[in-house]
């Protein structure tokens, strides 16, 4: 099998891993602050629609489309993040879930977004190196962030928010930063995938999509950056391997989610595990 036909057969999956990797990293940011937000699919949707509309309705270059796809969800995240991030735990999860539904319904009912039919004929501008480049830059950014003072603040907030605030950490600002950066990354992933998949419909960005993104991060684990990437790769490849199961295919995702929570609460990637075993 030569390179070209191999690439033709598998490029969808490989680009899918890249885009899902970005999405998993976007939720990783908020999860590492101990916040469960389910709005990432909605931000991806906003980014995808905004980017696609820029490319379809104007003659501006692709970079502008991607810029809009990144900045619009980030702006939305600032606007809803300021009031919503006062909530904690399950209240935050449910509020962001509600926001996701509102976004989906708005996309479903607006004229410019094509309603239930969605958008068709988006110019296929995304090349493989766009996705790879974005993924590498995002990984570098997140790794740098994790090592910085900000990253330590994330951890402090996750462990004990009250204690973190007493130590002089601006918890509100830092949580908002994680939320907005996550939204921007999710939006960028949406913009990239819209210019690759050619079509968009509101159903792609509903609750199921939000849960898929969460599953990737939980499966991989939030102990480090490789975790979400591993989760994204596994959950992109798995449905292809399970094609034979047809309608039962999604059952595997559900089962994985349950099993990981029950038996592998830290996810697959736990660097500490090896170290501990070696010292024992």
């Amino acid at each position, binding site marked *: 099998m030569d390179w070209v036909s191999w690439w033709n057969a598998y490029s969808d999956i490989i680009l899918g891993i890249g885009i899902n990797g970005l999405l998993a990293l976007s939720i990783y940011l908020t999860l590492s602050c101990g916040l*469960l937000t389910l709005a990432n699919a909605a931000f991806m949707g906003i980014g995808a629609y905004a980017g696609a509309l820029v490319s379809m309705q104007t003659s501006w270059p692709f970079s502008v489309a991607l810029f809009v796809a990144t900045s619009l969800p980030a702006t939305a995240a600032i606007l809803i993040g300021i*009031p*919503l991030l006062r*909530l*904690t*735990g*399950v*209240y*935050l*999860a*449910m*509020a962001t*879930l*509600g*926001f996701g*539904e*509102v976004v989906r*319904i*708005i996309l*479903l*009912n607006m004229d410019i977004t094509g309603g239930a039919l969605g958008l068709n004929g988006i110019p296929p501008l995304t090349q493989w190196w766009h996705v790879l480049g974005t993924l590498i830059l995002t990984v570098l950014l997140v790794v740098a962030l994790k090592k910085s003072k900000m990253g330590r603040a994330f951890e402090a907030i996750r462990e004990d928010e009250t204690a973190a605030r007493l130590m002089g950490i601006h918890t509100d600002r830092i949580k908002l930063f994680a939320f907005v950066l996550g939204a921007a990354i999710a939006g960028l992933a949406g913009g990239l995938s819209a210019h690759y998949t050619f079509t968009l419909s509101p159903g792609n960005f509903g*609750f199921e999509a939000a*849960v898929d993104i*969460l*599953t990737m991060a*939980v499966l991989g684990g939030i102990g480090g950056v490789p975790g979400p990437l591993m989760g994204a790769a596994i959950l992109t490849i798995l449905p292809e391997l399970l094609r034979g199961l*047809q*309608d*039962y*295919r*999604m*059952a595997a*995702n*559900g*089962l*994985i*989610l*349950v099993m990981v*929570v*029950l038996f592998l*609460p830290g996810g697959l990637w736990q660097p500490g595990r090896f170290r501990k075993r070696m010292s024992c």
Partner: protein
Amino acid sequence: MWEQQLVNAISLGSVYALFALGFTLVFGVLGVINLSHGGIFMWGAYTSLALVTWFSMPLWIAFPAGMLCAGCLGLLIDILILKPLRNRQANHLMPMIATIGATILMTSLAQGVFGADNQRYPANLFPDLEFQWGETRLTLLQISITVLSLLLTAVMVWMLKRTRMGLALRAIAESRQTSALLGIPVERLFHMTSFMAAALGGAAGILIGLSFNAISPFMGQSMLHKGIAAVILGGLGDVRGAVLGGFFLGASEVFAVTFLSSDYRDAFSFGLLFLMLLWRPQGLFGTGKLREG
């Protein structure tokens, strides 16, 4: 016109209240957000449908049987998923994530067994009677749905307020450790709560299936979202709040469709949820202290 909408609102609201009651009960007693409540609701509807179509059972047997099956499903989820997490004293987000997984599993199984399309109850399952009051029409089905929902809700509330078991459940909601020390069989009551909540959810599923005459694997998801909205409106864990939240949501949906537009019906309930969380996260009836979720 106006009275007709009011009748529809009460009928819809009573089912929402029934669904929200089970959801809030689990949160109040177990302190867990059980996101598989929508999946249980859907399976309640499907089991009664299967009993009616495959075994030609009459509805008055299929209804309690469907509730029973839904209850057992809830019990199963409690034993297999929630109990290990309780024993581990897992982070409160873990049960949410695990029950999302259980929902995906249940939806996928329903899709595999019954297909992804809408299913209907056989025609003539329910006598097609209609009453008219001036302009207002009332079907026997609507009346039965409303009466059944209200009855189940009333039994549940009576149980919580007036029986020893209800007393024990309220004690557990107050403090799990103290209740255990006082000899209340906490673990058994957790199972019992999961069973009852799921049975109520299953009953709501059957009633919604009857009233719209459409059952699909995906009906649980939108219902779950509505249940969450109702429960948040009333205050998480508050029984009275869940019932009133259900009615409020039913009314607001019916009137939003009448006076605004049907396209934005669901956005309306989430808009309400949103505003409620911003204004009073503890809900209309919640106590001043916000539980650290």
